[in-house]
Structure formats: structure tokens, C-alpha cells
């Protein structure tokens, strides 16, 4: 296989908090030089809401505060996500490329194909479900969101390893229509995770390896391990302080 492109692979040794995770993504986007695949985890558990979501409509603020669950507003649109037992990916690629046309829907699908390939290596048959979901037997295992700045796409998304639906539904406000018990069961039926599908203890490292392979194969990119450089770290620090830890941003709508 000819690998004609090179990219950076950033894998954090430890989980990070919500603001830092989002700030690093934004910093890498602003400082973009070549394709990046970043894989990370979250501690403490957190809710991230989409750029355009109403904080009060989506999140049980009191429950989150009382249970030390972080809340962050993403720079990307999309829905509210409970981040806990998952591996999150962030992928950075130019808008104009030879992989997919400059079309929003097609770009989501093409990038998500990397995750689908990774799941195939685990013998799991996953499908892309427009607009931005990956499902296995119609149950969602991965969601994602995208933004573009200065000609670069950032798409970040989740791959669920385990799922604590009880906590998730306490953090998130489900609309009135879904609040009845029978609908909570239904909502739970709409998601799945690797723990349930593989019925064994998941080694995060194995999943990480397959995710890297999925992106590498999908984009024909050879990834080299990399850390954030000093400029990226400083930018991330400033962004964490001024944006993601800023109440005005969180309460934007």
C-alpha cells in the first residue's frame, strides 16, 4: 500500500477535563499545518452541548453540579453528549482535498467511514446513518460534529466503550415526549457500546490501534506519534480560559 500522505497522531497518556479537551481541539484547528488524528478520553465525566443548543433546555445543571460532571459548550453544532467511557477522536483535514467533494454531507460520511473500518476490524458491521451517526443494528455507537475554519475541517466524535444510561439520563433533559418510563427504555435501546457488543472487557489500547488503522486506511495517511508543541499548548491554555471556562460562552443561548 502506498502511503502518500503523512499526518500527526496525538494520543494523550491521561484523560483530560472537558475544557482542556475542547481547547486542544480548537488550538490544533487554528494552528493547523498537516492532517492530525487526535484520540482522547475524559475525566471527570462531562456533558458537551452543541454550539447552538440551549444550555437550560438540554442539561440538568443542578444534577451535574452536585455530581461533579463538567459541562462544556462545543464550537461544533450537533447535540448534547455524555462523555464518560468512550474514546473521542478529532480529525483535522483540509476542506479541499482529493478524498471527498467540498460538500458537508459527503464529508461527514467519508470521515465516519474511518470509524466504520475500525469497527470492521473488530468484526462489527457498522453503517453510516445520515446526518452524523454510526449505527450497529440500528443502534447508535458513534456520533460526531464538524466545524470548518480557515479552510480546515475539524470533525470530532465519540466511540462508546461503556454506557451508564442511568447517569446520562439524569444529566440530560429529555423532552416531555420522552420522559415516560417506557420511552426511557426505548431511548436506551437506541444506543449501544463496545462492552455490550463484544461482551468482554475492552482493552482501550486495542480499540485505539484499530481507530488509527481505520483512519490510516481510509485516508491513506501514515501517522507519526506527536505531542502538542509549545505554541499549540499556549493557544489551548488561552482558549480554555477565555472560551471554554467562560460562563458567557457556556450561557450563550
Amino acid at each position: 500500500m502506498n502511503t502518500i500522505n503523512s499526518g500527526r497522531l496525538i494520543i494523550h497518556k491521561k484523560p483530560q477535563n472537558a475544557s482542556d479537551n475542547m481547547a486542544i481541539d480548537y488550538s490544533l484547528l487554528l494552528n493547523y499545518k498537516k492532517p492530525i488524528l487526535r484520540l482522547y478520553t475524559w475525566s471527570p465525566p462531562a456533558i458537551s452541548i452543541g454550539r447552538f443548543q440551549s444550555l437550560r433546555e438540554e442539561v440538568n445543571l443542578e444534577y451535574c453540579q452536585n455530581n461533579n460532571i463538567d459541562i462544556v459548550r462545543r464550537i461544533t453544532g450537533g447535540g448534547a453528549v455524555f462523555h464518560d467511557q468512550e474514546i473521542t477522536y478529532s480529525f483535522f483535514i483540509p476542506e479541499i482535498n482529493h478524498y471527498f467533494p467540498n460538500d458537508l454531507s459527503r464529508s461527514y460520511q467519508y470521515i465516519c467511514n474511518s470509524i466504520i473500518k475500525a469497527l470492521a476490524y473488530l468484526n462489527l458491521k457498522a453503517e453510516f446513518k445520515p446526518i452524523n451517526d454510526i449505527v450497529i443494528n440500528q443502534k447508535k455507537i458513534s456520533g460526531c460534529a464538524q466545524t470548518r475554519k480557515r479552510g480546515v475541517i475539524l470533525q470530532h466524535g465519540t466511540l462508546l466503550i461503556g454506557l451508564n444510561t442511568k447517569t446520562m439520563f439524569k444529566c440530560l433533559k429529555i423532552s416531555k415526549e420522552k420522559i415516560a418510563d417506557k420511552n426511557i427504555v426505548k431511548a436506551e435501546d437506541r444506543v449501544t457500546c463496545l462492552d455490550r457488543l463484544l461482551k468482554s472487557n475492552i482493552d482501550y489500547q486495542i480499540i485505539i490501534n484499530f481507530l488509527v488503522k481505520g483512519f490510516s486506511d481510509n485516508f491513506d495517511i501514515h501517522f507519526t506519534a506527536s505531542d502538542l508543541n509549545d505554541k499549540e499548548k499556549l493557544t489551548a491554555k488561552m482558549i480554555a480560559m477565555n472560551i471554554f471556562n467562560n460562563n458567557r460562552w457556556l450561557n450563550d443561548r
Partner: protein
Amino acid sequence: MAIFRKKIPGGKLLIINIRINNGKIAKLCISGDFFLYPERKIYLMENQLIGTDIKSYSIALKNIISEHKIKLLGIGIKDIIDLIKLAFNEYD
């Protein structure tokens, strides 16, 4: 302020938080789990609709979207127009 919600079939949830005074939009907040590009244009969209009435709001919205090349994913211009129309009708 009144809240109007619409789940777009095969798409996302659109919520408008709106106040209409004397037949004109006085306050507007558009929220939901949709995608909009470029993201910062949401403020422009909301601000430019302030002061419009039932006859002028939809053309104002179409103009902003066209002029600023705003792209929507998960909701359409028509969905926003329909939901604001509902608000105007409810306020009457």
C-alpha cells in the same frame, strides 16, 4: 418570550425563543442540535430579524442566508420560516 419547537423528520430539533411586540420580532434566539456554517453567523441571522414583521421576516432571512452563504444541516430555511410563522400566528 415564547418557545416553539420542531423536530425535523430525518433531521434535527429546531427551537425558537421569540418575543413579538406590536406585530414585530422584538427578541429572537434560535437553538437546537443542528449545524450551521459559518457558526458565528447565527448572531447575524437573529439580529437581522429583529424589527421584521410577518410580511418581511422570511425575505430578510432568505437574504441573510444567501448574502452570507450560510449553510444549514439538519434544518432548512423553510423550517425556520414555518416556525416563526407559527409564532406570529400564536401572538395574534
